[in-house]
């Protein structure tokens, strides 16, 4: 079973749940920007959480099914049509051989995930098929997908009829918004910032710069002031870490961000709220940050991910 890409104007890459075990060598985790939507698409398609799916952002994609298959689509900011019908996201669909699947970009939201029952099959590199664009490995020859690419899928976990027409109810999903309040955990370098700057960060609105990408989201808003130096000796960092360089404009590390960095980190976005942040649209969304504790953030993420068990048959 396979999908052929007919048209593509966006950034489409193959991603699995991410590359682990190689960060000490400087290899970013990659993987999905919106982990919740990625896992939802996989689960709707009956796939293991380690299966690969297609991540699409910034533009449209049209694919054609070469054989009958089941696809599931989850994410924000896209309209879905299959053959001649429009369908909602967060559901799985039976697609007949020859039918087209079209995802067109809407105004709100950024990233959408298309999973195929059986998962996208390609050669793992460093134990993962996630695409690392900068290092040019993983995915399909280490590059973004393009028209003409043929994506093979594995064996579905159940019959196609059993896997089709499943949906994840809205109540089980994150509350995506153009004006999200995003929880973060303070530190480790909060002492590098003036008290006023900490207060500013938690009270002012920030927007996402158009120069943002899968490596990092640059925020624009009230500048944060460092007490003295704006550099530290490099140390490990993770997706969601909020670095603040000397210009005072925070940068949130994303899936392809380097494994280490040398700017002070005012905090790190809670895992449960990363999906809200990554789906923010440059020059449109207004973000507010709210402090939380590690324990509360962990609880929130466990609760969010347990929502994936609430898939219903239509």
């Amino acid at each position, binding site marked *: 079973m396979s999908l052929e890409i007919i048209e593509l104007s966006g950034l489409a890459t193959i991603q699995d749940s991410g590359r682990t075990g190689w960060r*000490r060598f400087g290899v970013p985790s990659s993987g999905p920007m919106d982990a919740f939507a990625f896992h939802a698409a996989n689960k709707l398609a009956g796939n293991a959480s380690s299966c690969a799916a297609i991540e699409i952002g910034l533009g449209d994609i049209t694919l054609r099914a070469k054989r009958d298959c089941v696809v599931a689509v989850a994410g924000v900011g896209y309209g879905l049509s299959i053959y001649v019908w429009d369908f909602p996201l967060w559901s799985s669909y039976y697609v007949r051989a020859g039918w087209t699947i079209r995802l067109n970009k809407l105004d709100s939201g950024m990233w959408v995930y298309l999973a195929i029952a059986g998962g996208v099959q390609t050669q793992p590199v460093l134990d993962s098929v996630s695409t690392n664009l900068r290092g040019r490995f993983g995915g399909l020859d280490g590059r973004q997908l393009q028209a003409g690419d043929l994506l093979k899928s594995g064996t579905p976990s159940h019959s196609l009829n059993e896997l089709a027409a499943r949906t994840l109810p809205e109540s089980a999903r994150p509350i995506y918004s153009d004006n999200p309040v995003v929880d973060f*955990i303070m530190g*480790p370098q909060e002492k590098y910032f003036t008290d006023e700057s900490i207060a500013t960060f938690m009270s002012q609105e920030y927007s996402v710069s158009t120069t943002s990408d899968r490596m990092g989201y640059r925020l624009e808003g009230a500048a944060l002031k460092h007490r003295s130096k704006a550099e*530290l000796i490099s140390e*490990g960092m993770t997706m969601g870490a909020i670095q603040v360089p000397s210009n005072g404009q925070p940068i949130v590390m994303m899936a392809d961000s380097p494994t280490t960095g040398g700017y002070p980190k005012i905090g790190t976005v809670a895992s449960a709220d990363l999906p809200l942040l990554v789906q923010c649209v440059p020059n449109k969304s207004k973000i507010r940050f709210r402090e939380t504790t590690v324990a509360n953030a962990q609880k929130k993420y466990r609760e969010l991910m347990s929502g994936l068990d609430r898939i219903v048959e239509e």
Partner: protein
Amino acid sequence: MKPRIVSLGDSAVLVQLGDDIDLTVNQCVHTLANLIKTSAINGIIETVPAYATLLVHYDLFTLSFTQINRILREKLAQIRESESRKPRLVEVPVMYGGELGPDLETVASHLGLRIEDVIRIHSEKIYTVYMMGFTPGYPYMGKLDDALVMPRLETPRTRVPAGTVAIAGSQTGIYSIESPGGWNLIGWTPLKLFDPNSDSPFLFAPGDEVKFVEDES
């Protein structure tokens, strides 16, 4: 300083063993990383050694902050200088100067040294891979002799070829893939630092020792 364990978000903790670039502190970081690796603790995903810190990524479905904190306290107590590792020594042939080391002359004149002195001082010492980062396979090595301490370039280059040997501050590094770069480029090695499809994808590992050897061919 006394080791500190602080949170970096809800699924990583940073173990701070010092706050500057110091070989003894860095050795402790690698020892701690090895202790954690050999213990194969359920819920610890991976660690990232840096100059004076070890970042520990953990699974929040398996471990709470209290639990990871307790585990790391136990491991910290097991670090003993007597148990210091026997690092691997990697020899790196370098062609200094020329097209692939375009800053060698500027470096020499800035430091008031002859070109051959820069080469001699750079290749004399055995360095330690303090950490890896920036790009896959990029080694941050130190410390350079004080005579070779250079500021970073004012305007970073947009494209530096893989294998380019560079210096900045008290550190030396080798570009592992073609990437932008702001360090002073003094030479080039034919060795491949990163080959994702190889059985051993990385030339270096954190904690390795490195000796540059001038290749005059």
